[in-house]
């Protein structure tokens, strides 16, 4: 398959200073209904891996350190 990389601004932002994924926390990854968050293997922080967001907010509200902010996707804003 030919790959075409298209940059996009994803709705879920993670404050890496606050994220404690490297200590074993996976709350945001666990609660996302669409399973679009993941822990980056290199930075060991949470990030939005797939731009498939329902902006429903469990990740933001359940994060124990307040590291996550969900923006309304630009197409809807």
């Amino acid at each position, binding site marked *: 398959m030919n790959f075409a990389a298209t940059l996009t601004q994803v709705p879920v932002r993670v404050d890496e200073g606050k994220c404690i994924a490297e200590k074993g926390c996976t709350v945001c990854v666990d609660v996302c*209904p669409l399973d679009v968050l993941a822990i980056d293997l290199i930075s060991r922080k949470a990030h939005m891996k797939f731009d498939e967001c*329902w902006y429903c907010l469990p990740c933001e509200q359940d994060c124990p350190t307040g590291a996550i902010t969900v923006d309304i996707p630009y197409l809807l804003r």
Partner: protein
Amino acid sequence: MKTIEMEFDLVVIGGGTGGPMAAVKAKERNPKLRVLLIDKAHVKRSGAISMGMDGLNNAVIPGHATPEQYVKEITVANDGIVDQEAVMAYAAGSFDMIQELDRWGVKFEKDETGDYSVRKVHHLGAYVLPMPEGHHMKRILYRQLKRARVEITNRVVVTRVLTGPNGEVAAVMGFDCRTAELYLIRTKAAVISTGAAGRLGLPASGYLMGTYENPTNCGDGHAMAYHAGADLANLECFQINPLIKDYNGPACAYVTGPLGGYTANSKGERFIECDYWSGAMMQEFHNELLSGNGPVFLKLDHLAEETIQEIETILHSNERPSRGRFHEGRGNDYRKKMVEMHISEIGFCSGHSASGIHINARGETSVKGLYAAGDCASVPHNYMLGAFVYGKLCGENAAEYCATTSQTQHDAGTQAAEAARIQAPLQHQGGLTPYQIEYKTRRLVNDYLQPPKITSKFLIGLSRFAEIREDLSSMSAADPHELMRAMEAQSILDCAEMAAHASLFRTESRWGLYHHYVDHPERDDANWFCHSLLSRDANGQMAMRKKAVEPYIVPVDDEERIAYQRLRVATTAQAA
């Protein structure tokens, strides 16, 4: 590829609203029953009520409404095409369920005497009960699942129900959306509670997951019921909702209506008498959108500051909590100007409309051992409380069925074919992505299936869907997550074809905008006062047939019968 094999008595597919209730009630009926609740997300935050719910839209509470009155209201709101016994089974169980939820810790609004604060939103009776703190709903359900010792498997996507020698439920199949491992779960019975088919139309914003329904609810259950041989009812009665323009939240007549908010045209004038979501209401909404008075707005700017604060507290903390930041981004303050509204993409959802997997008053589908509850099943206007009541009925009845049934052997050929279907996108290199297949299917749904419905457009739509079906063999998935999207894209395509076939079958117009058929603009009770059923025929094709409406148990007189046909505000004559 490894296949994980398991065996249970009852598998509940979908852990949102009706599913957890079905699992808990099956265990209460028989604590020894081996019950598995399976969800493709995580049960803690899955389904339509992932972030809670702001109220009950159909509470039948003694002193405020009777079950008979409610059955009559829904019969009229749904243009007469209802199985009244099934609606009555909900209505009769409604108050017991409210009391049980109350005991479990759900906080309903009560007045100073401790009575439930029921509000009127429907055309005839009063059935709306606010839950200002309804954001805790999923936590309460999860606690009950743990207490009842229900086994839970998260992140497994169920794709098919396999049947035994006599067409009865014998197993379910699926895969893990993180590892792609296959699952084969032998079971005597299954409850499908997979929610709406909400990823059918494409939202006007073009953002694939910006749907009204939780996008996990993409019609998997409708597709697996169809392939298991079950009947699906009235699929031409689409769900279309009045929403905030570009945001997927309802403008919320149920929350703002009782507090003085209403749907208005661009002049700030009311044009419908009742904001309750019916097909007739949506038709008037659509007419106004396209008229010189469009677009349509939610009007709150006339309300007192304290009322607006109350509305903001409920709407911005419950069900769709990102609503506040959407308005903030647009600089839209409820106090200062009206909020622009639009209509949603189409879907199947009996919660608000009337289509789904056909069930009777016991929650049974036409397949032995297969039950369905909530937005995916066919009981009309059922909402969250209906999902709970039918979850309970399905759980209890399935437990009894299991007690008298033994496990049968599923068809090995079907299992092999399904394993191959699931694994194909992973084995394929190159080709089309699941995103491309899904986007194109849903764009064509908008182009050809969105009402007003026109025969020639539907026929073009069907031929374009057939082209996409041929393209499925070249769809590839790079990882297990994409595999989930690839399998969902196939459910969406199944639902798109079902929507088209059902719509072409009913050669009349009914349910307002939901089935506004331009070639057959009139309602035709002589030929079409009946349900339509879709099922798979012997050749594996979609077949349609009529089913007579069951004899009414609550009579409806002629004056009441047309109440929902008179929604438009009458234009008053100028004083002479």
